């Protein structure tokens, strides 16, 4: 029964997502395409965090670093578009953003994954702070103020400067990656990852070099977050260290929890709910944080399994 309901909601939601630009245009509310662009991009970021947080049990408190470096990769390549290595082509910039983010995740993960528990939380935070201060001090790229991009990346036949096209690109990326993640968590690799979350010691005793598996998951997650960052840079046509601020990492965690940790659709729900909440609350009162704060505590205390969990009260995390 609940399973049917969940299916209806999932497919209905998907249909709605696909039709949204037309609906919004029909109602003359083009702004909601922009808003949903942001939601979907942050959903992508939250999804990447969910892979290591929800499926791998790695509480990374520095995920903003990958989001930020992905954005900066696109920004810096565009900034140098006259130089031999510069480019405004999305077909180069987006993979480059993923690659750079993956390399950063490899370096940070290789060190951080030697620790666990609170130490892991704090060392990932420390690395993210290092990346934050690194970009704050890059005067050429605007330092604290960030840098403006002249236009969105050039995606050949697809005109990214059109919000609706941009929306479909982001939606397409998100759906493809969601499906990839759906396959991944059910694959041999995913089984190992989930096993590590359940009981790493047991997995080692079974003969799994858990460190390597965690590191690979960490790198995949970083790369996808880098892609989200690249899209974020394109959406705002602006890159700045505020994308790397530690509170961003916190917000991404909130989205994952809010939507439902270790679920496929959870991060989308989480990102949507968080941004709508932020938007609605901040329009009601200047002191909206005083509502949001306790709300977060309440969610943690009461709705432990997130919004997706409400649809599926007893189901196993999938």
């Amino acid at each position: 029964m609940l399973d049917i309901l969940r299916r209806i909601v999932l497919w209905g939601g998907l249909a709605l997502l696909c039709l949204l630009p037309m609906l919004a245009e029909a109602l003359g509310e083009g702004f909601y395409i922009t808003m949903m662009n942001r939601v979907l991009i942050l959903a992508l970021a939250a999804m990447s965090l969910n892979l290591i947080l929800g499926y791998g049990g790695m509480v990374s408190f520095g995920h903003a670093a990958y989001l930020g470096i992905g954005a900066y990769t696109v920004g810096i390549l565009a900034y140098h578009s006259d130089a031999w290595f510069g480019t405004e082509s999305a077909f180069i910039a987006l993979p480059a953003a993923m690659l750079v983010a993956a390399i950063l995740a490899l370096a940070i993960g290789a060190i951080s994954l030697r620790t666990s528990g609170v130490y892991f939380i704090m060392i990932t935070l420390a690395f993210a702070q290092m990346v934050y201060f690194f970009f704050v001090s890059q005067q050429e790229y605007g330092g604290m103020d960030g840098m403006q991009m002249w236009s969105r990346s050039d995606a050949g036949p697809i005109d990214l400067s059109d919000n609706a096209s941009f929306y479909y690109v982001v939606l397409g990326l998100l759906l493809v990656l969601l499906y990839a993640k759906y396959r991944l968590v059910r694959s041999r690799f995913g089984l190992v990852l989930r096993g590590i979350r359940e009981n790493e010691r047991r997995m080692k005793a079974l003969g799994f070099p858990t460190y390597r598996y965690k590191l690979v998951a960490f790198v995949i997650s970083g790369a996808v977050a880098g892609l989200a960052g690249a899209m974020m840079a394109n959406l705002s046509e602006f890159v700045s260290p505020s994308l790397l601020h530690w509170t961003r990492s916190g917000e991404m965690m909130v989205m994952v929890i809010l939507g439902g940790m270790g679920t496929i659709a959870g991060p989308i729900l989480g990102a949507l709910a968080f941004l709508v909440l932020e938007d609605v609350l901040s329009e009601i009162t200047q002191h909206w944080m005083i509502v949001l704060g306790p709300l977060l505590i309440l969610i943690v205390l009461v709705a432990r399994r997130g919004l997706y969990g409400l649809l599926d009260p007893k189901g196993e995390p999938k």
Partner: protein
Amino acid sequence: MTLLLFVEQVLNGLQLGVMLFLMAAGMTLVFGIMGLINLAHGSLYMIGAYVAATVQQATGSFLVGLLVALPVAALVGMAVEMIALRRLYPRDHLDQVLATFGLILFFNELVKIVWGPQAYFMAMPDMLSGSVDIIPGIPYPAYRLAIVATGLAVAILLYLLITRTRIGMLIRAGATNREMVNALGVNVDRLYTIVFGLGAALAALAGIMAGPILALEVGMGESILILTFVVVVIGGIGSVRGAFVAALLVGIADTFGRVLLPPAIAEMTIYILMAAILVWRPQGLFPAHA
């Protein structure tokens, strides 16, 4: 760098170090005993400073401000512990991070509503407003020396509390073996509340001591919070001794980093230090749990 300047910078490093120790001691105890990662520890620092400043402005006395703010912050801490945080002890770190992240948002906004968005003023106690020549020719603010002295005194008191008293025995036992405390027939809930209150009071003390030097503003807790985390993690979670050593280490490293290194690298000094130490010793310098 001349020798005199060097001595002065060491003092500056010590002063930053003892401030961090006051913050880190409470946090590491809460980490070690209750297993709680509390992002809102910085909020208690902020509340301590604001309350003390308000009382000081009303009464004209720094000391009265201090004496009122400490118990107020302890009570706020204990109330938060009983209402919300207690339920988080059995939860994983992720839940704790999120809930206490929510607490930060709440307290920041609360302070903004009560005291306004502008920076708030806290005066220096008159007695300590001058300078002292630590070495002839090097005047050093008396108040900063007082901070160092207070910090060291608190460190000694904490040491005595933990090693010589019954509650200290329970704290030590709690940090290494939670079941044992249960087995001793102690009211664990009350012990936890008391420890949390103690941690809150220490954080508030740091905030009050910092008040006359700094602007009191919303968000002041977060800038010291992350440094405090670094200290706790370097020292080894749950170890007060580790927190002390790490606090001084971070204080000195940060001070000299700022003076000697270009700004871009100086800002990263302590994070690099932390990463290096964790690579070398993944459990920090003095791990409390064997």
